[in-house]
């Protein structure tokens, strides 16, 4: 029911593979057994771009990369390039100039838009509270409600102290 494998001619072909040589590119259809022998798997064939970027980085260690050192863990940028793994949280700011273009290539973005860390969420909440209180205070002053304004000013003072903490 299926086309036979282009290599062994016996088993059914389950994979289409692009073969590239001097003569040009040609698509062949092969069976799973021959694919295994030749080292093709679907997993490897599809989407290797990130792996390629990481591998390219390893080949491309420049002289200056040894001089960039993370103050947190002592890792050099050259060491990161060779190993493909960072040494600690401090490596990110320490290598930022060199790391940012790489992150952009791998991720297609350099700004986090997902969930904020809890500390970050607390900060964001505190900031929002300040913005709201300032707006209410201005409104109270504009309405000449000085009792309300005094109360809000106290509250704002406390909130500002909290946010600085």
């Amino acid at each position, binding site marked *: 029911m299926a086309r036979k494998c282009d290599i062994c001619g016996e088993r059914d072909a389950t994979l289409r593979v692009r073969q590239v040589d001097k003569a040009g590119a040609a698509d062949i259809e092969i069976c799973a057994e021959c694919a295994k022998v030749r080292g093709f798997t679907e997993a490897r064939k599809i989407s290797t771009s990130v792996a390629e970027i990481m591998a390219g980085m390893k080949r491309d260690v420049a002289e200056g990369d040894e001089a960039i050192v993370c103050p947190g*863990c002592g890792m050099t940028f050259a060491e990161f390039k060779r190993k493909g793994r960072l*040494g600690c*949280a401090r490596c990110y700011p320490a290598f930022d100039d060199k790391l940012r273009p790489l992150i952009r290539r*791998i991720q297609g973005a350099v700004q986090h838009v997902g969930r904020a860390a809890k*500390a970050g969420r607390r900060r964001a909440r505190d900031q929002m509270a300040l913005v709201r209180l300032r707006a209410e205070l201005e409104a109270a002053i504009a309405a000449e409600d000085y009792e309300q304004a005094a109360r809000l000013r106290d509250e704002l003072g406390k909130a500002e102290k909290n946010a600085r903490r």
Partner: protein
Amino acid sequence: MLAADRVGRWLDGSGPEIGVVVSTRVRLARNLDDVPFGIKARPADQARVVGAVRWVLQEAGYLDSGGFVDDEQLTEERGGFLLERHLVSPDFVKSGLKRGLYVSRDETLSLMVNEEDHIRLQALDSGLNMPAAYEAAAKLDERLEDDLGYAYLPEYGYLTACPTNLGTGMRASVLVHLPGLVLTREIEKVLRGAVSVGLVVRGLYGEGSETRGNFFQVSNQRTLGLSETEILETVTNTTRQIVEHEHKAREYLVEHLRVEVEDKVFRSLALLRSARILSSGEAINLLANVRLGVALGVINELKTEVVNRLLVLVRPENLQAMLGERLKPEERDERRAALVRDTLVQP
């Protein structure tokens, strides 16, 4: 800590799209802010992370519904057993660090300490169910975050050892069974479509593993610059499209090649019921054909759950754990054949 004759609740054959989608997984990568990552962590640092995570799990009551094992208990055999059950990654098995592992009793939640990141936690669910898996993972993650300071920068999000996991630190994936698309040779076109929307397709055990029994893992590639919701939606929507293509392929096969499909399915079942020697690779391929037969309604006497269970138990370390003895490969093939025959015995 885990019963060797039972498999995880996420393999119970329930949930949306179960004929095609075996399971859903959400994985989060996290690191502590004040401890060097894997390759720079000294043994004392590594032990500190294990201790801290274990303490939070204890405090939060997670140890009441699961177990925690430390490095000494994670032997090579145990690692293989857990890997075959999708509870740990290949990198964890050979991490070379002082590790720790939490697994919930129903195997839907697991947490690796000191893989390449300090924390890799995952939630598994049956069928296509991203919201449930994400909720379970996020709940444990938030509880850990209450007590452990995570490495985080507003612009880069959660910091990971490898920049490929940066940001959300989240990998959302599905394990799909696509025999219809393989048989109709549409598979590459469909998977290419998934890749074009930024997803990755891998084999049964993740990165670099082979695709066996026509099982594929589909997950997001990017982790930065997208929100958790966007990632979950992209993977879910693309999976729905893959499921639709697979159903169309199966309909085509049943309509035009019914006898051939039935022959393949029933031959596989007959072999499983009769073979005296069965390698794990052969068993997985035959069981995958039977799974298709059950999903198509060609085989009515078996449930997906039974096939799922065997797909785990036929693997070498699981087989030996269940039998409670170490066996040579030839002995394993005989005992595996016996286990499969006994399980699939005709009613």
